[in-house]
């Protein structure tokens, strides 16, 4: 079929592309929006509560947000499979690149392992803390620290995923994603490297709520995520509906 053939694109998809890929491409920002509401509004782990407070303050934090923490994180436990699906979508686009599938598998592996420290640990720790509010304050303080440190400081897995993504994009001859996105992914690795300092400093710019280790890194992450969502849509639209299925 030539480009000029009428009806070349499926009439049910806007501008071409496969329908199931299109649905997943919409699902991606939808899931992240829900995730955003959970972590920002309900459970209050983003922006992070302070590391440099007393055990009594931490107990007060859990008391204050008790209900929304429980609602938010239990909902996340049900929905967390959505994260795997969003990773799968990126991996699908990576498999369409000319570099071969191993990078896509690396991405899935890195992101998959990263989910444990990335948000599962803080989910379980915070739910445990909220479960028995009359627990010893030192134990609640411990759950707070473990949750926040793992959530903000989880590094190696995501760095590996960003690295394989960047390399795949740079060597891809099919131009599924533009080269500049590889560079944005490399910036993500840099912020993860800096995040190591969170484990050392309870206050200051390198703490888990610090201006450099957290806030500036959030800016970079937001750029990365927004760019990824836009690029997934472009990649899905650019794919023709009759492109052969991947292995």
């Amino acid at each position, binding site marked *: 079929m030539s480009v000029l053939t009428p009806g070349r694109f499926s009439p049910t998809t806007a501008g071409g592309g496969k329908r199931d890929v299109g649905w997943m491409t919409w699902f991606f920002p939808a899931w992240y929006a829900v995730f955003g509401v959970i972590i920002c509004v309900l459970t209050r782990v983003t922006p992070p509560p302070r590391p440099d407070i007393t055990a009594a303050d931490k107990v007060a934090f859990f008391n204050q947000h008790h209900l929304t923490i429980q609602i938010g994180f239990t909902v996340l436990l049900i929905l967390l499979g959505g994260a795997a699906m969003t990773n799968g979508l990126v991996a699908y686009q990576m498999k369409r690149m000319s570099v071969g599938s191993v990078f896509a598998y690396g991405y899935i592996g890195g992101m998959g392992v990263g989910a444990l420290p990335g948000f599962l640990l803080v989910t379980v720790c915070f739910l445990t803390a909220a479960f028995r509010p009359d627990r010893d304050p030192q134990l609640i303080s411990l759950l707070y620290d473990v949750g926040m440190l793992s959530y903000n400081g989880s590094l190696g897995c995501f760095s590996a995923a960003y690295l394989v993504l960047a390399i795949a994009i740079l060597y891809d001859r099919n131009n599924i994603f533009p080269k500049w996105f590889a*560079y944005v992914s490399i910036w993500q690795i840099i912020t993860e*490297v800096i995040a190591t*300092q969170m484990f050392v400093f309870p206050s200051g710019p390198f703490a888990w709520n610090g201006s450099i280790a957290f806030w*500036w890194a959030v800016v970079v992450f937001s750029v990365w995520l927004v760019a990824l969502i836009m690029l997934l849509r472009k990649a899905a639209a650019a794919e023709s509906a009759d492109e052969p299925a991947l292995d």
Partner: protein
Amino acid sequence: MWVMVLGDLVIFGGYFIVFMIYRSMNPTAFLAAQQHLNITIGVVNTVILLTSSWFVAQAVLCVRGGDPDRAVRLLWGGAASGVAFMVLKCYEWYREIIAGQTNSDMFYSFYYVITGVHLVHLLIGLIVLGVLVRELRTPGRGRVWMIESGATYWHMVDLLWVIIFALLYVMR
């Protein structure tokens, strides 16, 4: 590549600004800590990195002039300078840590993070130079735009160091 360079410059700019803000909150402490830095190592390292940029810039000219073999030798020169910088930097860190300047001091925490992130950029740069050498060695390739892109990245590493040198080592 300019997306990478401009974005990276902005990101580092953020680090520099935060450093300055914290410095303005503790000027005497920062000044006192700064004195423990070895300015000689700083100057030598700066010259080493400037020289590596000279090598890389000359390499680009050679590629444009159709002399890829000389370009490869020049790129090796640039890479060797980069490695020398790395070795000296690690030695400098070793000396500072042995002398007790750890990141328990605020100035030094900035020093280690900023020079550390810069070192990661340098390592990436060495990989980039390796990719450029391979490109030039592959018969029938040697795309000029690629050599120029890689060189631009390398000069960015040099540029960032010049600012770091001024802010951390020299300014008071």
